[in-house]
């Protein structure tokens, strides 16, 4: 049981997917226009995360290693579809306001990352609690960001009008999401710098590593793919080839223009 509690603590505090690791940024920015939306999105993701972790952990000895990613995706997509239909039937308001972001839970890198990093290697019960912990961590972060944006951008709290000041509407719009996240990031940096000075291990903060290298675009030195290795050199050589192609094209266009 202590292991299950440890997983919960790990997901909510130590490796909080949004506030510490910086994962799943697309839904974080898109749906946090109000606290209710953030909460709804977080809870939906939690259900999918916990159930898919559980099933993947149950099937971990059945799924062959080579096709594990497609298998994970099918399992996750099934649960997402179920949640989508349930929300549509019982909470239509939330379904409307979250819209396209509900089916997009499928590609939330937290879920595939947890399947790959934890559920595929560990027994059922800890995997279930790992999913619940990570999901709750995500929910709490989304609700806090949603509350902040709703308060500054609309001067309200969970839909209640407060009317204390003239709202700064831009915080409810797209740019506000970027600014709030920038603030969050700056706070993380501050903690990271302070922690590094005291000699603490801060490598996890803002690492953005979901252990899901397939969908990762971060720069790191331990990228792993099933059969493709991408190195910095590859990227640079590609860039050179691109530049040459563009130069050639420009020359061609120039010549045509001269004619």
């Amino acid at each position: 049981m202590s292991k299950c509690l440890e997983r919960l603590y790990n997901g909510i505090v130590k490796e909080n997917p949004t506030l510490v690791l910086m994962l799943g940024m697309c839904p974080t920015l898109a749906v946090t226009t109000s606290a209710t939306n953030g909460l709804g999105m977080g809870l939906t993701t939690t259900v999918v995360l916990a159930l898919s972790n559980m099933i993947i952990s149950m099937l971990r000895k059945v799924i062959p290693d080579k096709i594990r990613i497609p298998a994970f995706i099918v399992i996750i997509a099934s649960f997402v579809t179920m949640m989508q239909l349930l929300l549509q039937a019982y909470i239509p308001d939330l379904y409307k306001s979250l819209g396209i972001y509900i089916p997009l839970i499928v590609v939330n890198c937290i879920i595939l990352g947890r399947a790959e990093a934890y559920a595929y290697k560990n027994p059922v019960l800890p995997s279930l609690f790992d999913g619940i912990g990570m999901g709750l961590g995500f929910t709490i972060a989304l609700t806090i960001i949603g509350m902040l944006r709703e308060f500054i951008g609309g001067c309200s709290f969970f839909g209640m009008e407060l009317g204390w000041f003239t709202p700064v509407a831009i915080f409810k719009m797209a740019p506000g999401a970027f600014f709030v996240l920038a603030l969050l990031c700056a706070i993380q940096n501050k903690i990271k710098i302070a922690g590094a000075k005291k000699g603490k291990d801060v490598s996890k903060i803002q690492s953005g590593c979901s252990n899901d290298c397939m969908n990762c675009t971060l720069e790191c030195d331990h990228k792993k793919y099933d059969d493709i290795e991408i190195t910095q050199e590859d990227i640079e050589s590609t860039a050179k080839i691109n530049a040459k192609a563009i130069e050639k094209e420009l020359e061609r266009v120039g010549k045509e223009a001269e004619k």
Partner: protein
Amino acid sequence: MIQVKDLLVILISSSLVSNVVLSQFLGLCPFLGVSKKIDTAAGMGGAVIFVITLSSAVTGCIYHYLLVPLNMEYMQTIVFILVIAALVQFVEMFLKKYVDSLYKALGVYLPLITTNCAVLGVALTNVQKEYGILAGTVNGFATALGFTIAIIILAGIREKTQYNDFPESVKGMPMVLITAGLMAIAFCGFAGLN
């Protein structure tokens, strides 16, 4: 029959007015991750245009000719994500074998966008907005074009501000996000085009 005028409206509204990254927040990971240099950003943009245009055409065909006749619209999420993942793998193998120059230019970026949320997002938007196959493909192309415009602009700004003297804790990601926020404000201006 859909008219050229409607397609132009889709083209402008999807690429500029409701930009995929700056107003819909799809495809943020590559937007923030691969925007350090203009060259790599352009490569990523090219790969995204290629994949999204192709995948929206294919998913459009599958939706209209397979799922609708079978009354299986509720399966769209599962079917789309699998089709997209398989398609990207297939395109990669095809390019590697037959079109070497294109593979060299786009190859390294292809596995990175297999399950990029923008690709699935476009396929689902096409269904939600009830676009036909042609309109859906144009919408896919326009969305990807918007992504490319945004990522190249961001890469340009990041190259310029790379060595600026920011406070220690704002360096790196926070500054990129503030830049993206300012760009989003600028893109809000396109809303007037509607």
